[in-house]
Protein backbone atom coordinates (compact mmCIF):
# COMPACT_ATOMS: atom_id res chain seq x y z
CA UNK A 1 0.00 0.00 0.00
CA UNK A 2 1.53 3.36 -1.00
CA UNK A 3 2.36 5.66 1.89
CA UNK A 4 0.10 8.75 2.17
CA UNK A 5 2.66 10.99 3.78
CA UNK A 6 2.06 13.94 1.48
CA UNK A 7 0.11 16.84 2.92
CA UNK A 8 -2.69 18.53 0.97
CA UNK A 9 -3.32 22.25 1.24
CA UNK A 10 -6.32 23.96 -0.28
CA UNK A 11 -5.87 27.67 -0.91
CA UNK A 12 -9.27 29.29 -0.57
CA UNK A 13 -11.12 32.47 0.30
CA UNK A 14 -14.72 33.11 -0.74
CA UNK A 15 -13.71 36.56 -1.93
CA UNK A 16 -12.04 36.76 -5.33
CA UNK A 17 -8.86 38.73 -5.92
CA UNK A 18 -7.33 38.23 -2.47
CA UNK A 19 -4.26 36.42 -3.76
CA UNK A 20 -5.09 32.72 -3.85
CA UNK A 21 -3.31 32.22 -7.15
CA UNK A 22 -0.47 34.53 -6.13
CA UNK A 23 0.16 32.48 -3.01
CA UNK A 24 -0.29 29.12 -4.78
CA UNK A 25 2.27 30.05 -7.41
CA UNK A 26 4.85 32.33 -5.86
CA UNK A 27 4.97 31.23 -2.24
CA UNK A 28 5.02 27.57 -3.21
CA UNK A 29 7.79 28.20 -5.75
CA UNK A 30 10.00 29.37 -2.89
CA UNK A 31 8.74 26.62 -0.58
CA UNK A 32 9.72 23.81 -2.96
CA UNK A 33 13.24 25.16 -3.26
CA UNK A 34 13.85 26.30 0.30
CA UNK A 35 12.58 23.11 1.91
CA UNK A 36 13.62 20.81 -0.95
CA UNK A 37 10.21 19.22 -1.27
CA UNK A 38 8.26 17.49 -4.03
CA UNK A 39 5.39 19.90 -4.61
CA UNK A 40 2.41 19.54 -6.90
CA UNK A 41 0.28 22.56 -7.74
CA UNK A 42 -3.25 21.79 -8.91
CA UNK A 43 -5.27 24.45 -10.68
CA UNK A 44 -8.81 23.51 -9.65
CA UNK A 45 -10.46 26.56 -11.08
CA UNK A 46 -12.55 26.75 -14.23
CA UNK A 47 -10.98 30.18 -14.84
CA UNK A 48 -7.53 28.49 -14.66
CA UNK A 49 -5.71 31.66 -13.57
CA UNK A 50 -2.84 29.68 -12.04
CA UNK A 51 -2.23 28.01 -15.40
CA UNK A 52 -2.37 31.38 -17.17
CA UNK A 53 0.13 32.78 -14.68
CA UNK A 54 2.68 30.04 -15.29
CA UNK A 55 2.16 28.78 -18.86
CA UNK A 56 2.19 30.67 -22.15
CA UNK A 57 -1.05 30.21 -24.07
CA UNK A 58 0.34 27.96 -26.80
CA UNK A 59 1.84 25.60 -24.22
CA UNK A 60 -1.39 25.57 -22.23
CA UNK A 61 -3.47 24.77 -25.35
CA UNK A 62 -1.10 21.89 -26.23
CA UNK A 63 -1.52 20.41 -22.76
CA UNK A 64 -5.28 20.85 -22.91
CA UNK A 65 -5.45 19.15 -26.31
CA UNK A 66 -3.50 16.23 -24.87
CA UNK A 67 -5.98 15.97 -22.02
CA UNK A 68 -3.29 16.95 -19.51
CA UNK A 69 -5.50 18.99 -17.20
CA UNK A 70 -7.14 18.30 -13.87
CA UNK A 71 -10.39 17.57 -15.71
CA UNK A 72 -8.93 14.19 -16.69
CA UNK A 73 -8.63 13.39 -12.98
CA UNK A 74 -12.38 14.05 -12.57
CA UNK A 75 -13.65 12.10 -15.59
CA UNK A 76 -12.31 9.80 -18.30
CA UNK A 77 -12.32 11.19 -21.86
CA UNK A 78 -15.80 11.02 -23.43
CA UNK A 79 -18.37 12.90 -25.51
CA UNK A 80 -21.15 12.95 -22.89
CA UNK A 81 -21.40 16.74 -23.11
CA UNK A 82 -22.00 19.50 -20.60
CA UNK A 83 -24.90 18.05 -18.63
CA UNK A 84 -23.72 14.52 -17.99
CA UNK A 85 -20.62 12.86 -16.56
CA UNK A 86 -18.62 9.93 -17.83
CA UNK A 87 -17.82 7.20 -15.37
CA UNK A 88 -15.47 4.25 -15.42
CA UNK A 89 -14.24 1.50 -13.12
CA UNK A 90 -10.67 2.20 -14.18
CA UNK A 91 -8.48 4.21 -11.82
CA UNK A 92 -7.70 7.87 -12.59
CA UNK A 93 -4.59 8.56 -14.69
CA UNK A 94 -1.18 8.75 -12.98
CA UNK A 95 -0.04 12.26 -12.04
CA UNK A 96 2.87 11.91 -14.48
CA UNK A 97 0.39 11.95 -17.38
CA UNK A 98 -1.18 15.24 -16.34
CA UNK A 99 1.60 17.24 -14.77
CA UNK A 100 3.98 19.76 -16.28
CA UNK A 101 7.34 19.98 -14.52
CA UNK A 102 8.76 23.46 -13.92
CA UNK A 103 11.74 22.95 -11.66
CA UNK A 104 13.73 20.15 -10.15
CA UNK A 105 16.96 19.70 -8.26
CA UNK A 106 19.79 18.00 -10.11
CA UNK A 107 19.61 14.92 -7.92
CA UNK A 108 15.84 14.65 -8.50
CA UNK A 109 15.15 14.85 -4.78
CA UNK A 110 12.72 17.75 -5.14
CA UNK A 111 10.60 19.16 -7.93
CA UNK A 112 7.77 21.58 -8.65
CA UNK A 113 4.97 20.41 -10.92
CA UNK A 114 1.67 21.86 -12.10
CA UNK A 115 -1.54 20.20 -13.24
CA UNK A 116 -3.34 22.87 -15.29
CA UNK A 117 -6.96 23.79 -14.84
CA UNK A 118 -9.67 23.77 -17.49
CA UNK A 119 -12.88 25.62 -18.32
CA UNK A 120 -14.46 22.17 -18.65
CA UNK A 121 -14.73 22.13 -14.84
CA UNK A 122 -17.62 24.61 -15.21
CA UNK A 123 -19.92 21.71 -16.15
CA UNK A 124 -20.15 20.63 -12.51
CA UNK A 125 -21.99 23.82 -11.62
CA UNK A 126 -24.61 22.87 -14.25
CA UNK A 127 -25.25 19.32 -13.05
CA UNK A 128 -27.68 18.78 -10.18
CA UNK A 129 -27.59 14.98 -10.05
CA UNK A 130 -25.76 14.26 -6.79
CA UNK A 131 -25.28 10.60 -7.67
CA UNK A 132 -23.36 11.54 -10.82
CA UNK A 133 -21.31 14.13 -8.95
CA UNK A 134 -20.47 11.59 -6.24
CA UNK A 135 -18.71 9.45 -8.84
CA UNK A 136 -16.67 12.46 -9.97
CA UNK A 137 -15.71 13.31 -6.39
CA UNK A 138 -14.69 9.73 -5.71
CA UNK A 139 -12.39 9.70 -8.73
CA UNK A 140 -10.86 13.05 -7.79
CA UNK A 141 -10.18 11.90 -4.22
CA UNK A 142 -8.57 8.72 -5.54
CA UNK A 143 -6.35 10.89 -7.71
CA UNK A 144 -5.35 13.02 -4.73
CA UNK A 145 -4.54 9.90 -2.69
CA UNK A 146 -2.27 8.82 -5.49
CA UNK A 147 -0.62 12.24 -5.53
CA UNK A 148 -0.05 12.10 -1.77
CA UNK A 149 2.05 8.99 -2.20
CA UNK A 150 4.24 10.76 -4.79
CA UNK A 151 4.56 14.30 -3.41
CA UNK A 152 5.42 15.89 -0.09
CA UNK A 153 2.88 18.64 -0.63
CA UNK A 154 -0.13 18.97 -2.91
CA UNK A 155 -1.45 22.53 -3.24
CA UNK A 156 -4.94 23.05 -4.65
CA UNK A 157 -5.78 26.52 -5.96
CA UNK A 158 -9.56 26.87 -5.76
CA UNK A 159 -12.03 29.33 -7.20
CA UNK A 160 -13.79 31.60 -4.72
CA UNK A 161 -17.10 29.82 -4.39
CA UNK A 162 -18.90 27.06 -2.56
CA UNK A 163 -19.15 25.01 -5.73
CA UNK A 164 -18.90 21.27 -6.12
CA UNK A 165 -15.22 21.42 -7.05
CA UNK A 166 -14.42 23.58 -4.01
CA UNK A 167 -16.14 21.01 -1.83
CA UNK A 168 -14.05 18.28 -3.48
CA UNK A 169 -10.93 20.25 -2.53
CA UNK A 170 -12.15 20.65 1.05
CA UNK A 171 -12.69 16.90 1.31
CA UNK A 172 -9.17 16.29 0.01
CA UNK A 173 -7.18 18.65 2.17
CA UNK A 174 -5.55 18.46 5.57
CA UNK A 175 -4.77 22.18 5.69
CA UNK A 176 -6.58 25.25 4.49
CA UNK A 177 -4.56 28.34 3.59
CA UNK A 178 -6.68 31.48 3.50
CA UNK A 179 -5.06 34.60 2.03
CA UNK A 180 -6.66 37.77 3.37
CA UNK A 181 -6.18 41.33 2.17
CA UNK A 182 -6.55 44.08 4.76
CA UNK A 183 -10.14 44.91 3.80
CA UNK A 184 -13.61 43.98 5.03
CA UNK A 185 -14.50 41.88 1.99
CA UNK A 186 -11.54 39.54 2.39
CA UNK A 187 -12.25 39.09 6.07
CA UNK A 188 -15.87 38.29 5.31
CA UNK A 189 -14.59 35.78 2.73
CA UNK A 190 -12.64 34.07 5.53
CA UNK A 191 -15.78 33.84 7.67
CA UNK A 192 -17.70 32.35 4.76
CA UNK A 193 -15.04 29.65 4.35
CA UNK A 194 -15.53 28.71 8.00
CA UNK A 195 -19.32 28.81 7.60
CA UNK A 196 -19.08 26.47 4.62
CA UNK A 197 -16.92 24.03 6.58
CA UNK A 198 -19.40 24.11 9.45
CA UNK A 199 -22.21 23.28 7.00
CA UNK A 200 -20.43 20.17 5.70
CA UNK A 201 -20.59 17.45 8.35
CA UNK A 202 -19.04 14.95 5.92
CA UNK A 203 -15.77 16.86 6.19
CA UNK A 204 -14.33 15.45 9.37
CA UNK A 205 -11.91 16.19 10.83
CA UNK A 206 -11.98 19.79 9.63
CA UNK A 207 -8.79 20.98 7.95
CA UNK A 208 -6.52 23.17 10.01
CA UNK A 209 -6.81 26.81 8.96
CA UNK A 210 -3.82 29.07 8.37
CA UNK A 211 -4.37 32.72 7.51
CA UNK A 212 -1.87 34.76 5.48
CA UNK A 213 -2.15 38.54 5.31
CA UNK A 214 -1.51 39.47 1.71
CA UNK A 215 -0.85 42.57 -0.38
CA UNK A 216 0.04 44.64 2.66
CA UNK A 217 1.10 48.17 1.66
CA UNK A 218 4.67 49.12 2.41
CA UNK A 219 3.67 52.63 3.35
CA UNK A 220 0.65 54.33 4.95
CA UNK A 221 -0.71 50.99 6.10
CA UNK A 222 -3.91 51.08 8.13
CA UNK A 223 -3.54 48.19 10.59
CA UNK A 224 -7.15 48.12 11.78
CA UNK A 225 -8.11 44.97 9.82
CA UNK A 226 -4.92 43.20 10.91
CA UNK A 227 -5.50 44.17 14.54
CA UNK A 228 -9.07 42.91 14.39
CA UNK A 229 -7.97 39.62 12.84
CA UNK A 230 -5.02 39.01 15.16
CA UNK A 231 -7.09 39.94 18.19
CA UNK A 232 -9.95 37.59 17.31
CA UNK A 233 -10.25 34.66 19.72
CA UNK A 234 -10.69 32.05 17.03
CA UNK A 235 -8.70 33.43 14.12
CA UNK A 236 -5.92 35.28 15.93
CA UNK A 237 -3.60 32.33 16.59
CA UNK A 238 -4.11 31.10 13.03
CA UNK A 239 -2.71 34.25 11.42
CA UNK A 240 0.88 33.88 10.29
CA UNK A 241 3.22 36.32 11.97
CA UNK A 242 4.89 37.01 8.62
CA UNK A 243 2.93 38.87 6.01
CA UNK A 244 3.16 39.10 2.23
CA UNK A 245 3.73 42.70 1.34
CA UNK A 246 2.65 44.30 -1.87
CA UNK A 247 5.15 43.88 -4.69
CA UNK A 248 4.93 44.77 -8.36
CA UNK A 249 6.52 41.40 -9.05
CA UNK A 250 3.43 39.66 -7.71
CA UNK A 251 1.05 41.52 -9.99
CA UNK A 252 -0.23 39.77 -13.11
CA UNK A 253 1.74 41.13 -16.02
CA UNK A 254 0.94 40.97 -19.73
CA UNK A 255 4.61 40.63 -20.66
CA UNK A 256 5.80 38.05 -18.18
CA UNK A 257 4.69 34.45 -17.66
CA UNK A 258 6.20 32.49 -14.81
CA UNK A 259 7.07 32.61 -11.15
CA UNK A 260 7.67 36.06 -9.68
CA UNK A 261 10.98 35.16 -8.06
CA UNK A 262 12.34 33.81 -11.36
CA UNK A 263 11.93 37.11 -13.12
CA UNK A 264 15.40 38.36 -14.13
CA UNK A 265 15.31 41.58 -12.13
CA UNK A 266 17.60 42.59 -9.29
CA UNK A 267 14.85 43.74 -6.91
CA UNK A 268 13.31 40.25 -6.60
CA UNK A 269 15.64 39.44 -3.71
CA UNK A 270 13.66 41.47 -1.20
CA UNK A 271 10.51 39.58 -2.17
CA UNK A 272 12.37 36.26 -1.92
CA UNK A 273 13.58 37.10 1.58
CA UNK A 274 10.06 38.00 2.70
CA UNK A 275 8.56 34.85 1.21
CA UNK A 276 11.26 32.73 2.84
CA UNK A 277 10.09 33.87 6.26
CA UNK A 278 6.53 32.89 5.38
CA UNK A 279 7.77 29.49 4.17
CA UNK A 280 9.63 28.92 7.46
CA UNK A 281 6.44 29.56 9.37
CA UNK A 282 4.37 27.31 7.10
CA UNK A 283 6.96 24.55 7.48
CA UNK A 284 6.48 24.67 11.26
CA UNK A 285 2.69 24.77 11.14
CA UNK A 286 2.36 22.07 8.53
CA UNK A 287 5.24 19.95 9.85
CA UNK A 288 6.99 19.85 6.53
Amino acid at each position, binding site marked *: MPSLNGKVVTVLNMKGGVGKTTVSAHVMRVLYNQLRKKVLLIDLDSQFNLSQCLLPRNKYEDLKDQGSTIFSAMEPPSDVGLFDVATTDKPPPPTSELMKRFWQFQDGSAYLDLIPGSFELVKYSLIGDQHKLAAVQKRFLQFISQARSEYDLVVIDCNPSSSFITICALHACTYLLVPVRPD*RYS*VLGLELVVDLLDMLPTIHPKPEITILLNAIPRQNYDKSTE*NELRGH*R*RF*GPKVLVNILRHSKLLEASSNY*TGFATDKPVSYKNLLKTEIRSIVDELATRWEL
Partner: protein
Amino acid sequence: MSRNVERILLLLAASGLSQRAIQDGVKMVEQFGGKEFVDRVMALRQRIQTSYSEMPYDELEAIEFGPRNERSEIANRVVELLLKETSFSTEQAVLELEKSLFEETLQRELHVRFRSKDGLRKWVERLMEYISPSVILHHATMIRNKFVHYQHADWPLRDRENE
Protein backbone atom coordinates in the same frame (compact mmCIF):
# COMPACT_ATOMS: atom_id res chain seq x y z
CA MET B 1 33.76 51.26 -24.26
CA SER B 2 29.98 51.40 -23.69
CA ARG B 3 28.47 50.58 -20.29
CA ASN B 4 26.58 47.58 -21.74
CA VAL B 5 29.80 46.10 -23.11
CA GLU B 6 31.46 46.65 -19.74
CA ARG B 7 28.62 44.77 -18.03
CA ILE B 8 28.89 41.84 -20.43
CA LEU B 9 32.68 41.66 -19.88
CA LEU B 10 32.11 41.78 -16.12
CA LEU B 11 29.55 38.94 -16.33
CA LEU B 12 31.99 36.80 -18.28
CA ALA B 13 34.79 37.61 -15.84
CA ALA B 14 32.60 36.62 -12.87
CA SER B 15 31.21 33.49 -14.60
CA GLY B 16 34.24 31.31 -13.89
CA LEU B 17 34.42 30.20 -17.53
CA SER B 18 37.90 29.21 -18.70
CA GLN B 19 39.84 31.34 -21.21
CA ARG B 20 39.32 28.55 -23.76
CA ALA B 21 35.55 28.60 -23.21
CA ILE B 22 35.46 32.39 -23.71
CA GLN B 23 37.50 32.06 -26.91
CA ASP B 24 35.02 29.44 -28.18
CA GLY B 25 32.23 31.93 -27.53
CA VAL B 26 34.06 34.63 -29.52
CA LYS B 27 34.63 32.20 -32.42
CA MET B 28 30.92 31.36 -32.44
CA VAL B 29 30.01 35.06 -32.80
CA GLU B 30 32.59 35.47 -35.62
CA GLN B 31 31.26 32.37 -37.39
CA PHE B 32 27.49 32.96 -37.14
CA GLY B 33 27.32 36.69 -36.67
CA GLY B 34 25.98 38.90 -33.90
CA LYS B 35 22.28 38.43 -34.70
CA GLU B 36 22.49 34.64 -34.35
CA PHE B 37 24.30 35.04 -31.05
CA VAL B 38 21.64 37.39 -29.67
CA ASP B 39 18.79 35.16 -30.95
CA ARG B 40 20.25 32.13 -29.17
CA VAL B 41 20.63 34.02 -25.89
CA MET B 42 17.00 35.25 -26.08
CA ALA B 43 15.75 31.71 -26.86
CA LEU B 44 17.63 30.35 -23.85
CA ARG B 45 16.19 33.06 -21.63
CA GLN B 46 12.68 32.16 -22.76
CA ARG B 47 13.38 28.51 -22.08
CA ILE B 48 14.67 29.26 -18.60
CA GLN B 49 11.57 31.27 -17.82
CA THR B 50 8.98 28.77 -19.03
CA SER B 51 10.34 25.25 -19.04
CA TYR B 52 11.73 23.00 -16.39
CA SER B 53 15.33 23.40 -15.39
CA GLU B 54 17.66 22.74 -12.51
CA MET B 55 18.51 25.66 -10.35
CA PRO B 56 18.69 25.55 -6.60
CA TYR B 57 18.70 28.99 -5.03
CA ASP B 58 22.06 30.61 -4.63
CA GLU B 59 22.87 30.86 -0.94
CA LEU B 60 24.52 34.22 -1.57
CA GLU B 61 21.06 35.74 -2.01
CA ALA B 62 20.30 35.28 1.68
CA ILE B 63 23.52 37.00 2.62
CA GLU B 64 22.76 40.05 0.49
CA PHE B 65 19.95 41.09 2.84
CA GLY B 66 21.29 39.38 5.88
CA PRO B 67 19.26 36.93 7.97
CA ARG B 68 16.22 38.62 9.47
CA ASN B 69 16.07 38.62 13.22
CA GLU B 70 12.45 37.59 13.34
CA ARG B 71 12.13 37.22 17.07
CA SER B 72 13.41 40.73 17.53
CA GLU B 73 10.98 42.07 14.94
CA ILE B 74 8.02 40.32 16.54
CA ALA B 75 9.08 41.49 19.99
CA ASN B 76 9.24 45.05 18.64
CA ARG B 77 5.69 44.71 17.34
CA VAL B 78 4.48 43.43 20.70
CA VAL B 79 6.17 46.33 22.47
CA GLU B 80 4.58 48.75 20.03
CA LEU B 81 1.14 47.26 20.66
CA LEU B 82 1.45 47.22 24.44
CA LEU B 83 3.42 50.38 25.14
CA LYS B 84 2.93 52.76 22.25
CA GLU B 85 -0.65 52.00 21.27
CA THR B 86 -2.13 51.35 24.69
CA SER B 87 0.16 53.73 26.59
CA PHE B 88 0.72 51.10 29.32
CA SER B 89 3.67 51.32 31.61
CA THR B 90 6.09 48.41 31.25
CA GLU B 91 4.78 46.88 34.47
CA GLN B 92 1.16 47.09 33.30
CA ALA B 93 2.09 45.58 29.93
CA VAL B 94 3.84 42.65 31.59
CA LEU B 95 0.91 42.11 33.96
CA GLU B 96 -1.70 42.12 31.18
CA LEU B 97 0.30 39.84 28.88
CA GLU B 98 1.12 37.41 31.69
CA LYS B 99 -2.55 37.26 32.70
CA SER B 100 -3.69 36.66 29.14
CA LEU B 101 -1.05 34.02 28.41
CA PHE B 102 -1.71 32.31 31.76
CA GLU B 103 -5.25 31.57 30.58
CA GLU B 104 -3.94 30.37 27.20
CA THR B 105 -1.35 28.05 28.66
CA LEU B 106 -4.07 26.32 30.69
CA GLN B 107 -2.94 27.93 33.87
CA ARG B 108 0.50 26.42 33.81
CA GLU B 109 2.94 28.85 35.29
CA LEU B 110 4.96 30.85 32.83
CA HIS B 111 8.56 29.93 33.49
CA VAL B 112 9.88 33.17 32.18
CA ARG B 113 10.08 35.86 34.81
CA PHE B 114 10.22 39.48 33.77
CA ARG B 115 13.49 41.19 34.72
CA SER B 116 13.21 44.98 34.75
CA LYS B 117 16.89 45.41 33.88
CA ASP B 118 16.31 43.54 30.57
CA GLY B 119 13.11 45.35 29.62
CA LEU B 120 9.89 44.28 27.92
CA ARG B 121 11.38 43.46 24.53
CA LYS B 122 13.93 40.98 25.91
CA TRP B 123 11.27 39.35 28.07
CA VAL B 124 9.00 38.84 25.06
CA GLU B 125 11.91 37.34 23.10
CA ARG B 126 12.53 34.89 25.94
CA LEU B 127 8.81 34.04 26.05
CA MET B 128 9.06 33.00 22.41
CA GLU B 129 11.27 30.10 23.40
CA TYR B 130 8.23 28.56 25.13
CA ILE B 131 5.19 30.03 23.40
CA SER B 132 4.73 30.40 19.66
CA PRO B 133 5.27 33.95 18.35
CA SER B 134 1.86 33.97 16.64
CA VAL B 135 0.16 33.21 19.98
CA ILE B 136 2.07 35.98 21.75
CA LEU B 137 1.25 38.42 18.97
CA HIS B 138 -2.40 37.33 19.15
CA HIS B 139 -2.58 37.99 22.89
CA ALA B 140 -0.79 41.32 22.62
CA THR B 141 -3.25 42.36 19.90
CA MET B 142 -6.25 41.21 21.99
CA ILE B 143 -5.03 43.30 24.90
CA ARG B 144 -4.44 46.26 22.63
CA ASN B 145 -7.91 45.97 21.09
CA LYS B 146 -9.51 45.75 24.55
CA PHE B 147 -7.91 48.93 25.80
CA VAL B 148 -7.62 51.14 22.76
CA HIS B 149 -10.75 53.08 22.05
CA TYR B 150 -11.35 52.81 18.34
CA GLN B 151 -14.34 53.04 16.13
CA HIS B 152 -15.68 49.56 15.57
CA ALA B 153 -15.94 48.44 11.99
CA ASP B 154 -19.41 48.28 10.46
CA TRP B 155 -18.65 44.66 9.60
CA PRO B 156 -16.74 43.31 12.59
CA LEU B 157 -15.65 39.67 12.67
CA ARG B 158 -18.30 37.52 14.38
CA ASP B 159 -17.41 36.32 17.84
CA ARG B 160 -19.34 33.08 17.85
CA GLU B 161 -19.92 31.03 21.02
CA ASN B 162 -18.13 27.73 21.34
CA GLU B 163 -15.46 28.85 18.89
